[in-house]
C-alpha cells in the first residue's frame, strides 16, 4: 500500500482494503445507502429496521422501547448506550470510527467511552455553523449572497413590521429561526393572523432571519471540504411542500438529480459559489461533508444562499448514487478519506470539472412520503422495502426484495425504503417511506408529474391503520344539572 494515495484508483483500493470498522449510526441507513459496498468493514447501526433483518450490514438492537424520541441525537445517544449495540461494536473489535447524521456533545462523550473516533468536526463547531444567522455571515465572507434579509429579535407583530420597514424588505416575509429543519422553522408571514399562528415559535427564540419573500425554486448541492480543496457534487432540484407528500408548507420532501434541471449558467454559478463557500468553511475550521440550499429566482435566475447543513443530509443518497459517483467514487468517500489521516493527493479541479460534465449525470428522483391526512391511528399494514412495479393500469405492486436502489431497471420500477412499520403510530407528518425512481418526478414547471402522483398513490394505498380507542360520555350519561342547596 503506497504511503500517499495519488489518484482515485488508489483511494478506491485503500477503502476496499480498509481494516478499521466504520459505523454509520442513525435512525435508518438511508442517507449513506450503498456506502458499505465501497468501504470494507462498514456497518450501519440503526433504530428502525427498514429491511426486516434482511440487509447484511444493518444492525438493529432487537429489544427496543417504543418511545417517541425528541431528536435524531436522542436516537443516536440511545443506541450508543444499548447493550446489544455495545456488544456488537466490541465483538467486531478494532478502533471504531463513527459517523452520524446528527450528534451532540453527549454523543461525543458516549463515543469516547466506547473508544471510538467521531469522524466529523466537533459538535460545538457544527452547531455554530448550522445556525442560520451564522450561515449568512459565512456566506457574506465567502462572497455567497443571501436573500435580502435582516437578522433581529422579534417581540411582537408591530415590532416585526418596524424592523422590516427599517430594512426596506416589505411585509411579505419568510422568517426562519436559527436552528431546525425547513419544514418546521420556516414561517410565511403576510398578516397579523399569520404571525399569531407562529408567534410561539418566533417570540423569545432569539435572533430570527427575516427575509423578503421571493418567487424561487429550491435546489440543493452537496460538497466535501478536503485539504486538497472543496469537491462539489451536482446541483439537484428540491421537492418542496407537495401536499401529496408532506403536510408542511415549505417542507422538504425529496430531490431530483438530472443534468438539465437548471440552465447551464445557473448550474455553473451554483458550483462556483459552493466551492467558495467550502473554502471559507475550511478557514472557519470546518472540514468534510456539507450541503447548501440555493434559492433560484424564477424570473431573473439570480441565485441566493438558502441554508447550510454542515452534515450529510436527506439528499446525500442522491449525490452518492449519481453516475459520476459510480464512475469515480461517492462524495462521502472523500469525507472518510479526509478524516482517515491517510495522506492523499488529489487534483480537485480536474475532479470538479469532470463532475460538472452533464454526461456524468443521469436522472433519478426520490420522494419522501409522509402521512398527509389529518388523522391519527395505529399502522396495521405497510409496504415492505424492495423493488415495486407499476402495472399498465397505474397500480403499484411489490415485485422483489432488494436493498440496492440501482436495481431499479426502468421508469416502471421503483425502490421503496420502508420507515413506517405495523404497530407504529400513523399521524400527520409521520414518515411512511422513501421512494426512489429513475427519471423525473416533476414537470418542467416544477410540479409533481402524473407518474409521480401514481407512485405516491400506489404506495399510500397499501398502508392500513386501525383507530385509537376513544371514549364517550355522551349527554345521555350525564344527568341534567341539579341545584345544590
Amino acid at each position, binding site marked *: 500500500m503506497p504511503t500517499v494515495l495519488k489518484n482515485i484508483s488508489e483511494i478506491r483500493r485503500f477503502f476496499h482494503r480498509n481494516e478499521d470498522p466504520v459505523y454509520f449510526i442513525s435512525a435508518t441507513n438511508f442517507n449513506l445507502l450503498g456506502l458499505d459496498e465501497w468501504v470494507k468493514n462498514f456497518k450501519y447501526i440503526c433504530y428502525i429496521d427498514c429491511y426486516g433483518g434482511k440487509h447484511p450490514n444493518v444492525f438493529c438492537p432487537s429489544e427496543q422501547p417504543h418511545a417517541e424520541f425528541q431528536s435524531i441525537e436522542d436516537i443516536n445517544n440511545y443506541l450508543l448506550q444499548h447493550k446489544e449495540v455495545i456488544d456488537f461494536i466490541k465483538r467486531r473489535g478494532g478502533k471504531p470510527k463513527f459517523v452520524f447524521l446528527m450528534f451532540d456533545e453527549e454523543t461525543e462523550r458516549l463515543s469516547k467511552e466506547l473508544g471510538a473516533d467521531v469522524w466529523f468536526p466537533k459538535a460545538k463547531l457544527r452547531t455554530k455553523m448550522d445556525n442560520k444567522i451564522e450561515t449568512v455571515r459565512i456566506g457574506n465572507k465567502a462572497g455567497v449572497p443571501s436573500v435580502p434579509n435582516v437578522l433581529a429579535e422579534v417581540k411582537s407583530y408591530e415590532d416585526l413590521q418596524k424592523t422590516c420597514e427599517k430594512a426596506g424588505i416589505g411585509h411579505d416575509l419568510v422568517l426562519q429561526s436559527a436552528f431546525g429543519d425547513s419544514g418546521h422553522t420556516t414561517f410565511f408571514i403576510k398578516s397579523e393572523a399569520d404571525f399569531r399562528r*407562529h408567534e410561539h415559535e418566533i417570540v423569545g427564540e432569539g435572533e430570527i432571519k427575516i427575509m423578503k419573500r421571493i418567487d424561487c425554486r429550491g435546489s440543493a448541492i452537496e460538497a466535501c471540504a478536503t485539504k486538497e480543496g472543496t469537491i462539489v457534487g451536482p446541483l439537484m432540484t428540491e421537492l418542496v411542500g407537495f401536499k401529496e407528500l408532506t403536510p408542511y408548507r415549505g417542507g422538504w420532501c425529496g430531490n431530483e438529480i438530472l443534468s438539465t434541471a437548471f440552465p447551464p449558467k445557473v448550474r455553473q454559478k451554483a458550483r462556483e459559489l459552493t466551492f467558495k463557500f467550502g473554502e471559507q468553511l475550511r478557514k472557519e475550521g470546518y472540514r468534510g461533508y456539507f450541503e447548501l440550499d440555493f434559492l433560484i429566482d424564477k424570473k431573473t435566475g439570480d441565485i441566493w444562499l438558502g441554508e447550510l447543513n454542515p452534515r450529510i443530509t436527506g439528499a446525500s443518497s442522491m449525490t452518492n448514487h449519481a453516475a459520476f459517483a459510480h464512475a469515480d467514487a461517492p462524495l462521502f468517500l472523500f469525507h472518510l478519506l479526509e478524516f482517515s489521516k491517510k495522506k492523499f493527493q488529489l487534483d480537485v479541479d480536474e475532479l470538479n470539472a469532470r463532475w460538472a460534465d452533464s454526461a456524468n449525470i443521469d436522472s433519478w428522483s426520490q420522494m419522501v412520503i409522509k402521512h398527509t391526512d389529518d388523522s391519527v391511528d395505529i399502522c396495521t399494514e405497510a409496504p415492505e422495502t424492495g423493488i415495486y412495479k407499476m402495472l399498465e393500469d397505474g397500480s403499484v405492486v411489490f415485485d422483489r426484495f432488494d436493498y440496492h436502489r440501482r436495481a431499479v431497471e426502468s421508469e416502471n420500477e421503483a425502490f421503496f425504503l420502508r420507515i413506517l412499520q405495523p404497530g407504529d403510530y400513523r399521524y400527520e407528518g409521520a414518515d411512511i417511506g422513501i421512494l426512489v425512481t429513475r427519471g423525473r418526478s416533476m414537470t418542467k414547471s416544477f410540479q409533481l408529474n402524473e407518474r409521480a402522483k401514481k407512485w405516491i398513490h400506489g404506495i399510500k394505498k397499501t398502508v392500513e391503520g386501525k383507530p385509537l380507542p*376513544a*371514549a364517550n360520555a355522551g349527554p345521555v350519561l350525564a344527568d341534567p344539572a341539579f341545584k345544590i342547596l
Partner: protein
Amino acid sequence: MHWRALSEDTPGPKWAGLFAEYWPDYKRWWLKEGDSARASYLVSRRALEDHMPEIVPLYDKLCELAGGGDQAARFLSFYCPPPYLAGCSQAIWTGEEPVLVRNYDYNANAFDSLVLRTNWQGRRVVGTSDGLWGLVDGMNDAGLAISLTFGGRRIVGTGFGVPLILRYVLQTCTTAEEAGAVLARVPTHMSYNVTVLDANRNYLTAMMAPDRPAIITHAAVATNHQENVEWISHARFTATVERERFLLQRLTLHRDPEDKFIGAFLRPPLYSTAFSAGFGTLYTAVYRPRLGEMEVRWPGTVWCLGLDAFQEGGRRVQIPGAA
C-alpha cells in the same frame, strides 16, 4: 364522577362544609409519610408570609373555618406537601378570540371534581379546585387565565404545592407579565409547566422546578416535559412528546376554527383513556379570559360556567373506565 359547581363570595359556611367533607381523605393523603414528614405550622406560615404575604389573611380565615387545628393549617399552607404528579396537556389557541384549553389527566379517586367561584379579597376567581383553595386551572376578573401540567421530573424540593401558586397568581396578578414574575419567584416543590394567558392576548409558559430557576418561555403548548425529556418512562407512558407534537401541529399546520381545536382535546391522542393507571383525562377545561367564560367538557357534554353567568349545580359524568 360526581361534579359540583359552587359559588361563595367570601369564605363562609359553604367552604367550611367542603373542608369538613374533604378533609378526612386529604388528611390520610397528607399523613401518608407520617406527621413528622411535613413541615411545622411555624415554618409553613412563615413560608407563606415570605412568598405570598398578600394572601396570608385569607389563609388565616380559612384555617379558622377549618376548625383551627394544627394539621389542617399545615395542610392548607400547601408547603412541602407529599409529592403528587399528573399528566395533562394545555395549549393556547390564538385565533379570533384567544382561548386556553387544557386536559386534566389524573386519578379520578384523588380529585375534588369541583368548580369553585369565589370573590375572596375582592377578586372574582373561577377555576377547578384542588386541596380546597388551590386550583389546577382557573381565571380571574382581570382576564387572566392559568393552567398547569406536571413537568415530568421526579425531583422533590422545598416549596409550595403548585395549586396554591395558581390560586396566588389569580388573587394578585392581572397580566401575563405579572404572573410570569410570580411564577419565577415563588418556590415550587415539584416541576410543573404553568401557562398563563391575559386579556391582551399576551401569554407565557413557566417551566417551574424546585432545583433550578424557572424558565419563562413563549411556548403556547405544554405537556409533561420541560426543555428535554428527563423521566423517560413517564414520558413514554403518558406520550408527552407525541401530545406536544400533535398540539403544535394543530396550531401551526391547520387553521382550525375554535370549536374544532377544542374538539381535538376530546379525542385521542390528546384524550387519554388510561384511567386504570391513574392518567385518564378527567375533563377538558376551556377558558376565554377576555369574555370571562369557562367551560368544562367531556366527550359529548359541555358545561358552561363563567365569572358572571355562574349557576351552582352538579353533574354526574360517567366516563367508561373512570371511577
